[in-house]
């Protein structure tokens, strides 16, 4: 594992939905080594703990990373006040990302709410081989659909209240795709009930499935053992750490 801490310039900032911000950050050394599924650990001024945010885009040519985050509390509020040209203090890239396999012919990317951003780098990798299913509370919360389309991936949009796309949860269109068969892998990030559901479906249908988990973190690099997550490895219970062993886990490993 290789990671760095430093202050990096915010090359671009925009609000892409209510209380949801997109930052493009100039950090060539980090962009160079970052992988889909990894995260960055951001310092929020005045707070003891950094805030983990998934990588939503990696542009090795421009030397930039993109992150998309929602204001959930005081820390993300503080980070959202940073502007283009300001520096952002990041410890990155962190964690264990998604398994990429060039031989996969059809992959499903499932993002729930603010779990959608980490799916975008996968869409960039898999392009037309990917179906990106995204679920949101309502039309006002929808993000990144245009970005997904640009990658060549097929997009399926759901909202809980039906105000945009399919009325219902992401599991609905997902189960239909499963019925049609031919899925090599499923990658998902979002609320725990959604992940549990998807993992169950994949298990039943014997589909390779990786999910990105969240846990409260301190160090972000595996030193403090703060972000434990119960998993099974080699038939033994293993307290894995979301920041180092994850955030991406094979769905079968996770003890729900």
């Amino acid at each position, binding site marked *: 594992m290789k990671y760095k801490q430093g202050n990096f310039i915010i090359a671009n900032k925009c609000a892409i939905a209510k209380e949801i911000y997109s930052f493009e950050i100039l950090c060539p050394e980090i962009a160079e080594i970052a992988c889909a599924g990894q995260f960055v650990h951001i310092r929020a001024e005045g*707070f003891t703990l950094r805030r983990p945010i998934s990588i939503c885009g990696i542009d090795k040519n421009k030397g930039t990373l993109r992150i998309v985050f929602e204001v959930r509390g005081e820390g993300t509020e503080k980070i959202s006040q940073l502007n283009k040209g300001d520096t952002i203090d990041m410890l990155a890239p962190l964690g264990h990302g998604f398994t990429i396999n060039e031989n996969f012919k059809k992959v499903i990317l499932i993002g729930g709410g603010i779990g959608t951003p980490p799916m975008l780098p996968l869409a960039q990798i898999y392009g037309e081989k990917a179906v990106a299913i995204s679920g949101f509370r309502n039309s006002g919360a929808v993000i990144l659909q245009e970005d997904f389309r640009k990658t060549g991936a097929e997009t399926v949009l759901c909202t809980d209240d039906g105000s945009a796309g399919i009325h219902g949860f992401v599991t609905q269109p997902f189960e239909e795709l499963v019925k049609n068969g031919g899925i090599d892998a499923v990658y998902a990030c979002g609320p725990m009930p959604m992940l549990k559901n998807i993992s169950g479906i994949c298990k039943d249908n014997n589909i390779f499935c990786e999910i990105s988990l969240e846990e*409260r973190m*301190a160090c972000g*690099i595996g030193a403090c053992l*703060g972000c434990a997550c119960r998993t099974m490895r080699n038939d033994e219970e293993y307290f894995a750490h979301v920041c180092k062993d994850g955030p991406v886990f094979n769905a079968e490993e996770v003890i729900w």
Partner: protein
Amino acid sequence: MADLSVNVCGIDFKNPIIPASGVFGYGHEYEEIFPLEKLGGIATKGTTLHRRTGNISPRIAETPSGMLNSVGLQNPGIDHFVEKELPYLLQKNVVILANIAGSTAEECAEVAQKLENTDVHMIELNISCPNVKHGGAAFGTRCDLAAEVTKQVRKATSKPLVVKLSPNVTDITEIARAVESEGADAVSLINTLLGMRININTGRPILHNNVGGLSGGAVFPIAVRMVWQVANAVNIPVIGMGGVSSGKDAIELMMAGASAVQVGAAIFTDPYAPVKIIDEMNDFLDSKNISSVREIIGAVKPW
């Protein structure tokens, strides 16, 4: 360049800064960020006789200028530590304090015994653990229990023995004197203060363990007070910690009486914190024309 070296219980430290037990694992993760050689010492993650899985998550909560943790001594056990972790750490030019714990005095002694034939430099005995034999009251909160566990561990080891004190007590000097009288070579303090946070949206405590240990800047004034009290109450050296995040904080704790300083939560805010603190201490001493950091140990002049 001021002389930053200190000597605690006969062990030479090139500088007084030691990442605190539990925040630094066994060093590997931070080695990506700076060479471990820069440090004065390393206090390793609390290790018990057998492997422990620790508490259920969430284990971390943020608080004003601080944090709570309820990791609960997750560790791979002393045998793993001795075989897999210690040899690597001992190659580094840095003092290793093996932080150990147990649920009974006997268990603590057994862990210490397992370190006897290693080259580890010091043992740091964490007595904030609940003692299963005595209904869960932490060793560290009762003089008799603190004395007993120190006595047993003292018998089991010839290494310099540092006893790490809990701040959750009415009078920390009593506990310090109790462990001193049973042969502790030094004391370190403070461990975390018991705290709690509740998620008001769910009505659930944020930590799955309900309560956890408070550390970080918030506790710094308590650490300064306790280090000062203990340094005045015992004749053995004090290793200070609790909320140190800058060179000035470290200087303040040393003025209060600490011979060396551990850095905990600050490393989460800034992974370079220990190294930055060393540099800042040097800058401060230089700016005051103080040639050795040893001159400031216990230098506070009370009113």
